[in-house]
């Protein structure tokens, strides 16, 4: 509940506070006029940070269309789009930067002119290389890395590279009505403003991942306002996608476990299936069997009750695998882009660390999925984190553990 109350107090304070401060050098009156409605929401300082951000966006499909649109409209400095695939007819179904005349063209190159038109102030850079050909150094020149619709082990490699470079990383994917957003911000600090309560705010841990690291107070209109600096710690895609468990407070409560969406188990099963089947999606009845076994194992490993994973859910999920539809990519792309903006502005609590979207129920619950033990930078020496995650969560290593793949080109850096 904490976060909610803080949000309630801090949101209006942004406009009251930030906007009275002189605009930073460089942000022009034209830009203030263009971005007027959003500056009133997050303040001119946050806009300045957005304006300086260089973002890497990997794979230009429907989900990335939405992310690109939202970030470019918001006024980032540059967007680098990496995609080596060519536009197919199926791409026309949910992607709005391309038309029939782009069939057979590179997907990033085809989308770029339309992305540029959204906001000519933003530099849009096209890279038609296969992302797998990039070394770790490539990622060092971006402020935030976003990878969409990729293989689980490719995400693992990219996340390893972002950890080496100390860069925030987002992964997201969509399967018809279902999808996910994962984030590894490594260690992220942000300031919430709230009216000071009678109880003093202690410098202490609030959850497994979040702690209060600093509190300052100021007077505003006769009210005492607290500026509370909080720190969130993260772990890697490798852990969150498989071995990491739900937080202790979930595991203690049957009611809460019952409420966890079975789509989380389905996604984990799908990731494992793809990892062991050369990246292909389940399609045959043979695949359905294997997928059912995997999903049941994942569900159990998460400690979720059997009855919440119904065969109907599994069938429905498999029916959606691999497709993209516009309304779902809009909500996921909207959530992801907003979190990127919030992280740049450092004024809002960010995603921690897995959001599972279920279009059947129109819900997007968030689950912090972490190993026990050190998080954040503390995970760095074991950047892929296999050992700590698998051992501490015990039991399912043989089934779940995917041996981390160190691409030589990344490790050499």
């Amino acid at each position: 509940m904490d976060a909610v109350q803080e949000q309630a107090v801090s949101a209006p304070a942004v406009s009251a506070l930030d906007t009275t401060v002189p605009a930073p050098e460089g942000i022009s009156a034209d830009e203030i006029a263009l971005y007027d409605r959003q500056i009133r929401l997050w303040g001119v300082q946050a806009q300045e940070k957005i304006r300086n951000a260089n973002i890497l966006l990997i794979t230009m499909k429907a989900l990335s269309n939405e992310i690109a649109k939202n970030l470019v409209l918001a006024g980032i400095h540059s967007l680098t789009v990496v995609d080596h695939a060519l536009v197919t007819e199926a791409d026309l179904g949910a992607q709005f930067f391309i038309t029939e005349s782009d069939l057979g063209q590179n997907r990033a190159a085809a989308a770029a002119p339309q992305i540029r038109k959204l906001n000519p102030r933003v530099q849009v850079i096209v890279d038609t290389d296969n992302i797998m050909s990039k070394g770790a150094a490539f990622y060092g020149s971006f402020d935030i890395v976003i990878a969409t619709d990729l293989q689980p082990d490719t995400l693992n490699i990219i996340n390893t590279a972002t950890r080496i470079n100390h860069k925030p990383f987002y992964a997201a994917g969509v399967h018809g009505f279902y999808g996910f957003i994962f984030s590894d911000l490594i260690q992220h600090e942000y300031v919430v403003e709230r009216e000071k309560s009678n109880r003093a705010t202690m410098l202490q841990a609030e959850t497994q991942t979040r702690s209060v690291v600093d509190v300052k107070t100021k007077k505003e209109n006769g009210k005492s306002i607290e500026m509370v600096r909080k720190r969130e710690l993260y772990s890697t895609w490798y852990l969150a996608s498989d071995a990491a468990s739900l937080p202790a407070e979930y595991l203690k409560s049957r009611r809460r476990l019952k409420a966890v969406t079975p789509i989380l188990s389905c996604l984990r099963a799908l990731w494992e299936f793809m990892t062991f089947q050369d990246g292909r999606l389940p399609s045959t009845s043979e695949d359905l069997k294997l997928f059912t076994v995997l999903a049941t194992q994942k569900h159990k490993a998460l400690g979720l009750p059997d009855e919440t994973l119904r065969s109907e859910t599994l069938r429905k999920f498999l029916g959606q695998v691999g497709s993209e539809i516009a309304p779902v990519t809009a909500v996921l792309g909207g959530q992801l882009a907003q979190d990127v903006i919030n992280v740049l502005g450092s004024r809002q609590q960010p995603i921690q660390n897995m959001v599972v979207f279920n279009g059947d129920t129109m819900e997007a619950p968030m689950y912090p999925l972490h190993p026990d033990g050190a998080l954040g930078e503390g995970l760095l020496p074991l950047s892929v984190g296999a050992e700590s995650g698998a051992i501490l969560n015990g039991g399912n290593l043989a089934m779940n553990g995917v041996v981390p793949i160190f691409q030589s080109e990344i490790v050499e850096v």
Partner: protein
Amino acid sequence: MARDQFNQKSLGIPLNTMVKETDKSEQARILMVGAGGIGCELLKNLVLVGFGEIHIVDLDTIDLSNLNRQFLFRHEHIKKSKALVAKEAAHKFNPNVKLEAHHANIKDRQFNVEWFKGFTMVFNALDNLDARRHVNKMCLAAEVPLIESGTTGFNGQVQVIKKGQTACYDCTTKETPKSFPVCTIRSTPSQPIHCIVWGKSYLLSEIFGASEDESPEMDHSKDTENGMYSSKEIEKLRQEAQALKQIKEAIGSDTFPQLLFNKVYKDDITRLRSMEEMWKTRRPPGPLDYETIIKEVPEIGMSKERILKDGQRIWNLQENTIVFKDSLERLSARLQTMKSSSNGSSAEPIITFDKDDDDTLDFVTASANLRSIIFGIETKSRFDIKQMAGNIIPAIATTNAIVADLFLTYIQVFLSPFAPERLLASDRIRAPNPDCEVCSVAQTRLLVDMSRATLNDLVEDFLRMELGYGDELSVKNEVGLLYDPEETENLSKKLSELGIKSDSFLTVTDEDEDNPRVNLVLNVRESSTELDDKPIKGLDISASSEAELPTSPIPRRKKPAPPVQPALTNGHANGKKEGSDPISSAAKKRTASEALDGDSPDATRKKHQPNGQGTTENDDLIIIEDDGAILIDD
């Protein structure tokens, strides 16, 4: 069909076919009202999903400040029609969809009930209360499902409205724009907004426009309520206004800024201060003198260009005075140009406040801040005053994208051939408010022979004889009362003489004390041919055989329902602070487990957190009640 393969896969073949089939009578025809922030996003989704036919209605043109989120529009589209540009842009996303754009007001008569009946579904993507209520009324009359939406900053909501099955938009009271007692504005301001309203609705309009009394922000109802504001005091204010009118004669002259300044900031304040009983519990105001301030302006570093460029910073006394003088001169020059070009032909030219008109904004900023200084109130930057005076609601692309997406659920609900009953199966759909004057009414279309139908034909023949109404009833239209037992002089007049036209609405209220009927809303349709027998016929309600029986075709009113809390109206009441919504708070308690057990596409109103803050350490769906849109701080 490759373009369509994912929609086919995800929506299922029957639903996907229903959405698209263009040669079937049940083809989906969609009306989207509003092509702004939500509209752009929604249109993209509707077009990509591939609805057969989509109509877009918007009367607005594109503005620079739209471009940060209304992604169908570019810089070169500024000042062009939103509906037309949106149509052109969205067409490229899927050439198979038929799009129609109407650059028009949805309240125009061409968009009548019959026209609304031609749609499968209506989506509201509007920004104002008035148009929302209108579309709500039309959809109820046409019995077309309506999906209503709104966003404010990070928050948004979607509400589904279906006649008889869900609450309608007007089932809960909406907050109307805030107004202030005149005495607060004129004599005892205590907050920045009071001084802003003074600058915008009093000073600016006294000098350049219509008089303050016409401003909805000024509430005269309390004028004489408290003893402090006697009729004598009102008389003095009148005299002050008179004196101001005399100063107005000097508009355009070099001395005008000084005259006006000393009038409103020195003489009026000195007089106000002399009313000692007013300042026993308040800090008395301190008059300002123009010459004294101007003398203190340093020689360098005070150019008006530099001040005006800095809209983010709060200006000091001297800076505000310089801007006051400068903006007053700009406005005066403009008014004189307007006067000379109008050649005295039409009405006196006026200048009214527009947040995007820098001259008026500068003037309101400076005059409000000067008044704030006098009363010891916090001063504000021009950027902030623009928001407060212009009722600006923060708006971002991502929230609009997400809200537009929530519509997906309703597409399923209304079009899915498999789950037509789902909407009713849910216990989270809010039932209609039985006292709602808009949806809990009986409705009928009325076929009228306009050449001869009189009010008496309606009251006596149709309502009393055919429908069995008793003596106690009243008939109203949008303008006011047409008939009640004491108001009978209109009875002999033709409906056409009373300003009733085709597509007019009439409301019949049963004033019977014991067992009144619900209100009856009549939608007038002009008969194209002369009706042979009676000049008025009900199209949807047949006559009851025996009058005054409980089997009257109009249902009786139910017992009063418990009071309903004000609804959460994001972006509806010009950005005023939201109340809490009973459904939202119900959703707050709703856990994911309940959601799993329940039927799925059912959430009536769900606030959506774009950044996942809806879930904290506990997995309940948590709704943040507040947002960054509080414009009026009291």
